[in-house]
């Protein structure tokens, strides 16, 4: 059963969900959110798309295999943990770079970039890829 309403609605929702998932990913470091929930929300977009327009179209829209996304995510998460080794810290110690921070003013942290965020992006991709792998497989089975 393909509903026209769902199909048209999905086209708008996919973009919104993906945008919201990135927002959740970035927000996670100060407030509830993070890579895991971001990945879940992001995958919901493509799940909706698969239900509305079929998995073939959803796969085409995704362009790469969801398994590959998950494995690349795993690699990114691992690299985020390994970076600490370059600085002589324990595995997975967060490394921070405060871009453009004003040294004389401690309240001005500039743009904080960290391996923690890199790790979360990895988690995002793992969850995103894994969920889509499962859902596509099950949709195609039925």
């Amino acid at each position, binding site marked *: 059963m393909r509903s026209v309403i769902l199909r048209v609605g999905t086209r708008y929702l996919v973009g919104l969900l993906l945008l919201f998932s990135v927002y959740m990913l970035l927000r996670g470091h100060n407030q509830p959110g993070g890579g895991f929930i971001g990945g879940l929300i992001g995958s919901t977009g493509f799940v909706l798309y698969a239900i509305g327009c079929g998995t073939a179209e959803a796969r085409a829209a995704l362009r790469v295999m969801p398994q590959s996304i998950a494995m690349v995510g*795993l690699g990114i998460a691992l690299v985020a943990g390994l970076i600490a080794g370059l600085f002589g*810290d324990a595995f*997975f110690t967060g490394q921070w770079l405060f871009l453009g921070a004003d040294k004389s003013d401690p309240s001005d942290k500039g743009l904080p970039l960290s391996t923690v965020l890199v790790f979360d992006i990895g988690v995002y991709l793992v969850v995103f890829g894994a969920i889509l792998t499962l859902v596509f497989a099950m949709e195609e089975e039925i």
Partner: protein
Amino acid sequence: MSWILALPIAVPFATAVLAFLARHSAAGRWLSVAGNAALLVAAVLLMGTVWNEGVIAAQMGGWPAPFGITLVADLLSGVMVLITAITGLAVSVYALGDINERKEYLGYHALFNVLIAGVCGAFLTGDLFNLYVWFEVMLIASFGLLILGGKPEQIDGGIKYVTLNLVSTILFLSGIGLLYGMTGTLNMADLAQAVDGVENQGLLTVVAMTFMIAFGVKAAVFPLFFWLPAAYHTPAFSVSAVFAGLLTKVGVYALIRMFTLIFDHDTGFTHTILLWVAAFTMVTGVLGAAAQSDFRKILSFHIVSQIGYMILGLALYTPMALVGAVFYLVHHIVVKANLFLIAGVSQRITGGSDVYRIGGLYKSAPLLAVLFIIPAFSLAGFPPLSGFWAKYIIVKAALEAQGWLIAGIALAVGLMTIYSMTKIWAEAFWKAHPDGRQPRLTDMPQAHRRPMLLAIGGLATLTVIIGLVPEPFVQFAERAAAQLLDPAAYVAAVLGDPG
């Protein structure tokens, strides 16, 4: 220090990622072999450090215990990681001949290495919730491996496997929640101290039982074992070998860890239950095996039976018994994985797995017959192979503890094991093939034959070495058991060392 502990987890994960990206080409399988070889190096380094310096611990991300995630290695963890690496390397070499390109394309090597990472993580973690996470990593990877190829009986076995394991997971998680509510910590070393301060010791025993059931499912003990023989004969032989060797042993390891480090407050109650569980596990496993005719199903029931011996070692809870349990664990992983690998070669050249429908291996493939005899007789406990020493120590410990009945059961089960092994021997090896076939090893292409026999030969050599020179292994097990019985060093390494 922290990197020595982190490498056995990081290396297989990195291997998984690389092997997945290279799954279209032959590079994928060689990356898997190289990754497992690197893991072996890391494991040897870890083992050497633990042997020389005692228990080592590291705080991941620099968050101090008991708040962060701690990785700890004592001798038991160290040897388990080492044996995981050995099995991983043997199976990844075997997979060069066993796994076809379709399965490789579907991500066999990636899943396999994620599984190895999960197993290593479970052995090394010093945090209860983290242990749960590693169990999940293992469960996801093993489910993927189990259904890879998508035959109906694989899906059937996979569903049973996952359902039962999810029940275990839920119990495990409830236990974690209850324990956290009572003590406010999940760091295992911290828990070892905190449980002494719990007012309601009866409630603690209840929580201990939750963990016993949760890990009992994973370890496939009586009466929670039935998912194992239903699932282990369905996937590729490489997969069932690594499952048979390692997965249930993670459950046994978790039982040993929890019931020596944390739940040692009421051993009269908990360890008596474990004793009965051990007895029933040994007996039902071996009886189940007697009724089977499928090569791998016989072996699967024997896993259950052998788990009973390890649990018996834990249940007796004497220094000697724990020595036996540790020795048994190591011996069993090597032997069991090898038997499944041999079953794979047998199926390839005889064309079947039902021992009544195959035969002739002794006459036309004598090399395989020799390679089978070593682990099979070791499993049954023939001197001078490794299984003899393992059973000897356990039975001696039972006699010393004046457990006449349990010692008798252990010996009788050993006898029954010989029956099953001789059944395989008589049917698959001695008897002529009912179709008049002459199964030869040369029926397999050389590119498959060489790696498969190399893996089997390597593990068989290890079995013989443990059997002929048991002295250093027993000494090692003695030190490991002493550490288990006196967790002071473990606790000090985790909580006392801020690094």
